[in-house]
């Protein structure tokens, strides 16, 4: 058995779902393979913690109304027991077909199809396509200039959409039947039937990762931001982080018991990448005990900031991160850093770390590296230093500052939890550096000439 197969079976072994033969085989591998043995020991410890999870009792009367409804329904269906009159009065009749005969049953059967969400969606789509197919040819026949404006824009036409994202004032235009071009409509003329549409496709949706730059970002930072990889950041794998592949839905329509509210075509709910994002830096730096230096926070706290204590603001920041609202999260953590409560100095390192992650996740690597550096400088004993080094190095890499990335990765090699990851990243970085060195350097080329 190889390590991969062993890893696949570990959980089943732990929970006793393997056959004896498979269990023996897996156990033999665990005894002989140090890394698998250690991995198994980790999940065993995890299971011990899991087995200590408290089960909470539901409130006693919480299901009273459900039980009453169940009794009503059972009474309505009971073949022999005669339900009490008041129960019938208060309970809806569950079975319309019992009263209405076959016609009501047929209607219910048809209604069962019609009310299915996927069918409704398909009908809507068909309606839209049908309307479009009927409407466009009509448009072309009756108003050739308008259709030209849609499908065959004249170059340099002044009614083309503005490059600006600001919506323009509606233009009072009409098609000139002689030239097929658009001209301003004169007073008293009837309005055209169809509004002129933009002749170029709309700008692509703004990636969440590169939304409006931080207010304090300098033009240089904004340029760096624009150069940075625009892929959304939340699922960037960091140490211990899990990124799971999107998987097809194996459910087969009509063959399984579909739960109420569940579409038969329903795939698993979108595994938002941020769900796999670790909730970061929860633990305060209890070892450090350092006081943060009173350096000013990058941004003054928003006036909308709740006046609660630092812990509440910290939690609010975490919640904002979970909701991918990285700007709100940044503001929350900045306010924690700038205005720590009397008993919340210990939150500072974690808040700095989360601030850096929020900045990184919103695409602002330039700000993120400053925050990472501040964290590393002011809180060298913070428990998440290893992760911060790796993440900060990644930001430097994206900014093209390879020597700074190397500096952080090399420091990360001395942190056991991320040492192997740092080594891997250094190897990748070395390749990147060699690639950069091979490219002709304009300055040196000019000097050689």
């Amino acid at each position, binding site marked *: 058995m190889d390590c991969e197969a062993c890893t696949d079976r570990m959980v089943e072994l732990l929970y006793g779902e393997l056959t004896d033969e498979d269990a023996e085989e897996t156990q033999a591998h665990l005894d002989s393979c140090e890394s698998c043995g250690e991995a198994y020991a980790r999940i065993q410890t995890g*299971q011990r913690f899991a087995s200590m999870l408290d089960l*909470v009792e539901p409130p006693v009367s919480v299901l009273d109304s459900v039980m009453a409804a169940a009794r009503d329904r059972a009474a309505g269906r009971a073949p022999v027991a005669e339900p009490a009159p008041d129960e019938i009065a208060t309970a809806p009749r569950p079975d319309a077909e019992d009263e209405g005969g076959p016609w009501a049953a047929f209607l219910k059967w048809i209604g069962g199809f019609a009310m299915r969400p996927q069918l409704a969606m398909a009908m809507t789509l068909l309606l839209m396509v049908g309307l479009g197919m009927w409407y466009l040819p009509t448009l072309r026949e009756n108003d050739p200039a308008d259709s030209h404006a849609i499908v065959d824009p004249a170059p340099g036409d002044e009614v083309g959409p503005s490059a600006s994202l600001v919506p323009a004032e509606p233009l009072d235009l009409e098609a000139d039947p002689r030239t097929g071009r658009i001209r301003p409509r004169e007073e008293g003329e009837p309005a055209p039937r169809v509004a002129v549409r933009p002749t170029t496709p709309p700008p692509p949706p703004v990636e969440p990762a590169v939304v409006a730059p931080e207010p304090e970002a300098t033009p240089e930072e904004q340029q760096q931001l624009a150069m940075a990889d625009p892929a959304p950041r939340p699922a960037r794998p960091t140490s211990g982080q899990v990124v799971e592949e999107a998987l097809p839905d194996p459910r087969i329509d009509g063959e399984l018991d579909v739960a109420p509210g569940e579409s038969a075509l329903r795939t698993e709910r979108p595994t938002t990448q941020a769900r796999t994002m670790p909730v970061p830096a929860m633990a305060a730096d209890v070892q450090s005990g350092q006081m943060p230096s009173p350096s000013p926070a990058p941004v003054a706290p928003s006036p909308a900031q709740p006046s609660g204590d630092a812990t509440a603001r910290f939690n609010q920041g975490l919640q904002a991160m979970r909701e991918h609202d990285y700007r709100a999260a940044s503001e929350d953590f900045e306010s924690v850093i700038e205005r720590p409560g009397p008993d919340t100095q210990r939150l500072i390192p974690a808040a700095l770390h989360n601030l850096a992650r929020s900045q990184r996740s919103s695409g602002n690597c330039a700000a993120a590296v400053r925050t990472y550096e501040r964290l590393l400088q002011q809180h060298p004993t913070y428990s998440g230093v290893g992760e911060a080094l790796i993440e900060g190095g990644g930001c430097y890499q994206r900014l093209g500052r390879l020597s700074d990335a190397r500096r952080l990765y090399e420091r990360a090699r001395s942190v056991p939890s991320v040492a192997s990851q740092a080594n891997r990243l250094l190897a990748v970085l070395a390749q990147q550096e060699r690639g950069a060195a091979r490219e002709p350097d304009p300055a040196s080329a000019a000097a050689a000439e």
Partner: protein
Amino acid sequence: MIKDPSDEELLRRFNDGDADAFAELVRRYERPLYNFILRSVRRRERADELLQDVFMKVVQRSQDFKGNSKLSTWLYTIARNLCIDHSRKMVFRRHKSLDAPRSGSGSEEGPSLLERTAAEGAEPDRAMVAEDLRKRISEAVEELPEEQRDVFLMRHVQGMRFRDIAEVIGVPENTVKSRMRYALERLQRALADYAEYVDELK
């Protein structure tokens, strides 16, 4: 010895008009389902409502259950769908009270617990450590990524087999097992400070 009727048999009896059969189903499932929901939505009052919703749907839709899967997978599919719908709503309508300390654990995020147990330097009281650990475990479970938490809870509060969990979630069984492994590793990491204490209990 009389064998207890299966869940599916109880539902069939309920469909035939036996309200006691439904009461027995409630007795079997209300506690694990409540804990599954509570750890997902974190707020007791929401968990109360969602538990009601789950069983109300069973009452209303019991005849939709075809019997070609286990009743437990059907119940957890309903519960999970309701939890997901709830969390989606919360994303759009960022609820003020989510920022407050959680009702489930009654405590704040990690720092205060670690501080109480570790920062003082003195030998912490064992009862206090145990109490703190219980809270930390609850929090660590609630902090698991949603897809790992669902798998973890179905396994631990209901004892469901991995293939049944896979059916609830609609992913391959191997994915479920991976998620379970990741969840346990995460718990181990999150609670590493208590590993020695737990090892002593062994």
